[in-house]
């Protein structure tokens, strides 16, 4: 017999390494699925956290700041943002909250104040321009004052890819609440 054939026959008859080989083929796939699941859950948890922070920020800013005189609004939003960011950063470091308050004075909409960190990495996705708010619901002209709370939570590259796939997000975990 040629040595090669003999070698093959060894492969066929001696199965001690086969399990290991097959296992190494499958393991990455299994691990990928498991870790993808974990990452997905983590990202989902992050997303829910983002939503919670944005709705709480909006709710506090709405109650505490939206009826203030214009001179006080900026300071009030700063205070709410500070508190919320401090609270959120304990759970998700790097969380940023941007609060803005719009006023509609007889049809003219203006941004009275926007509160974000000086070294902020993000920009608000809303503006006086009605394009950023929906035209259909006419919210910008319907409400006298509008509080917009946006929350950004930085995410890892892997999570970013997963979320891009599932939620169409890219930059950071993001949620906005409008009151």
């Amino acid at each position: 017999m040629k040595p090669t054939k003999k070698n093959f026959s060894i492969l066929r008859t001696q199965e001690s390494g086969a399990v290991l080989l097959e296992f190494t083929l499958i393991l990455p796939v299994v691990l990928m699925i498991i870790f993808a699941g974990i990452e997905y859950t983590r990202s989902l948890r992050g997303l829910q956290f983002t939503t919670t922070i944005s709705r709480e920020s909006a709710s506090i800013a709405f109650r505490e700041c939206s009826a203030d005189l214009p001179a006080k609004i900026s300071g009030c939003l700063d205070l709410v943002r500070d508190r919320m960011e401090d609270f959120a950063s304990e759970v998700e470091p790097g969380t940023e909250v941007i609060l803005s308050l719009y006023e509609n004075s007889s049809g003219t909409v203006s941004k009275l104040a926007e509160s974000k960190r000086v070294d902020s990495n993000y920009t608000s996705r809303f503006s006086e321009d009605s394009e950023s708010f929906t035209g259909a619901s006419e919210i910008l002209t319907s409400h006298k004052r509008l509080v917009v709370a946006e929350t950004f939570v930085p995410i890892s590259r892997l999570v970013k890819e997963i979320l891009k796939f599932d939620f169409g997000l890219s930059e950071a975990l993001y949620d906005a609440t409008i009151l």
Partner: protein
Amino acid sequence: MTRRFSRFPHGEQGAVLVMGAFVIAILLAVAGLAVDSGRFYHARLQLQKAADAGALSGLGATVIDFDTFSTLATVAERKQFIETKALRAATENLRVAGFDISDPKLEITPTYNFSTGTLRVDASSSQKSLLALAAPMFLLNTDSLMESTGLSVVAEVNRKPANISLVLDVSSSMECPSFGSCRCNTALRDPSESCAEEAALLGVNQKITDLSQALYQFLDLFDTVEDRINMVSFALIADLRVPLRPIDPLTGKAHRGFDRAAFNNFSSVSPGSSTNPSDGLMTAYQDFLDSGVANGPEEVSYILFSDGAPTAARFLISSPKSGMEANTSSTLGSHDYHHYSIVWQDSTVSRTWVGPSLFFKEHHTLDPKYNSAKAPVGNYTPSCHHPLVPVGSTEAPSDDTKFEAVFTDCINNFGFHMPMTPGKIYGDDMKSGTSKDFSNHWREQYFNNTIQLSDFLREKNAMVYTIGLGQQQNIAADISRGDPYQGINSVLHRKDIFLSRAASDYIEAHDELSRPYLGVHPEFSYNGYKSYEALKYSSNPKFGRYFATPNSQELTGIFKSIAQKVLLRLTK
């Protein structure tokens, strides 16, 4: 054949692959379920958020856009106003969250119940979850059944009744015109020209008139059936002008509601003498305490209006009289003097000299232990009664008897530590018919006591809002950290420091860098007052607001803003 068959039992290559395929399939299925339910619960969170936002926004619009809302005459119009705002806010939030708002299966139904004042927002979508579909098989409760047929959430918001205390300054400067310097209130005044005439000449109201108008519009925002409001005016001492309603035996608390007409006589008040916000706030709290509302779960909002930092009029001593009440009325007109009689209670056995001790009414119901722990260690007299006593004589006082009194650090009769600039003797050359200015002594006590009291109230679930009317004091800011009394005149004269600290206005404190003359240092803290920074990180910071204006015409806007803030805080 046998050889071929025999290969099956022996040939196990591929076994792991087969098992792996099963494992992967199961893992994929589980992961799929996790993704599916994850998406479902996230959608539910978003839907709940939108419903909450709609409910809050709808009811909040009645406060923020009160001008429009109050013009709507019929129930149907008001209902529609609220429901439209709620619908739009909820829809906008769903759109931002990535929902397709044109989807007919996405339903948002706001319902405002006019009699209970409750706004309910129902929201549902067709989003389904496989896990949720399977849930009813295991858990036969209605929640999971509802989930299995799609998403459905409810948000309900109404407004809690308000408890408000109006503590209003009626000191002499309130007679002045709305803004600018005021002649009628000073020595330069033309005796023939009253403050009313001076104001008319300028074509403006008197401050007190502007204040009463602001007050009436403020009351319009509240519900005469549900909300409790009392009113205290203060000058030398406080006067409970509109008390809360009597106690309801069923609840042990004051009846809800207020009598709008009872506030109408406010404009007829005649302003006079000093500014004692301390007694004003104390009297307001006392009324809420007696009515069983203070210290409870319900928040009380105190609105302290003052047109200046604490001041005290000069005193004029009249002839000592035996066995008479101290005359606390201001008989020399409203401006410069407080007329005071020395009371001589017994000429034969022992003598009790009752001088101008602290001008606070007795408030024994307060817990006297409060704050005592905060008092620094030292020698303090147990009460802050500093009587005027005759100098060097034990005989019955005559018109020529001179009087003196010594202010020392003390714990006053409701337990607050009253730091006094030590060693100052006042009145040592006072005799009948002479007057003496003790302003700084009183000022210091009023100042300190008001701030201690406001901190006390915040601990008892209250919010304090303050309004300062009048020109900013043009004093260079030399606030030394820690002890506001180091530069006693500059600090005690500055109502901005006084009122923003009393309100615990963090924003005002925070602006110090940009507006050094108006703000207060964030670490401003003294003798157990908490610093702003410490308050910021407490779980319930109770930051009030300090509003300042040189023009009383702006009071209407300020009072309205406070009313809206009070109402929004109660919308839950």
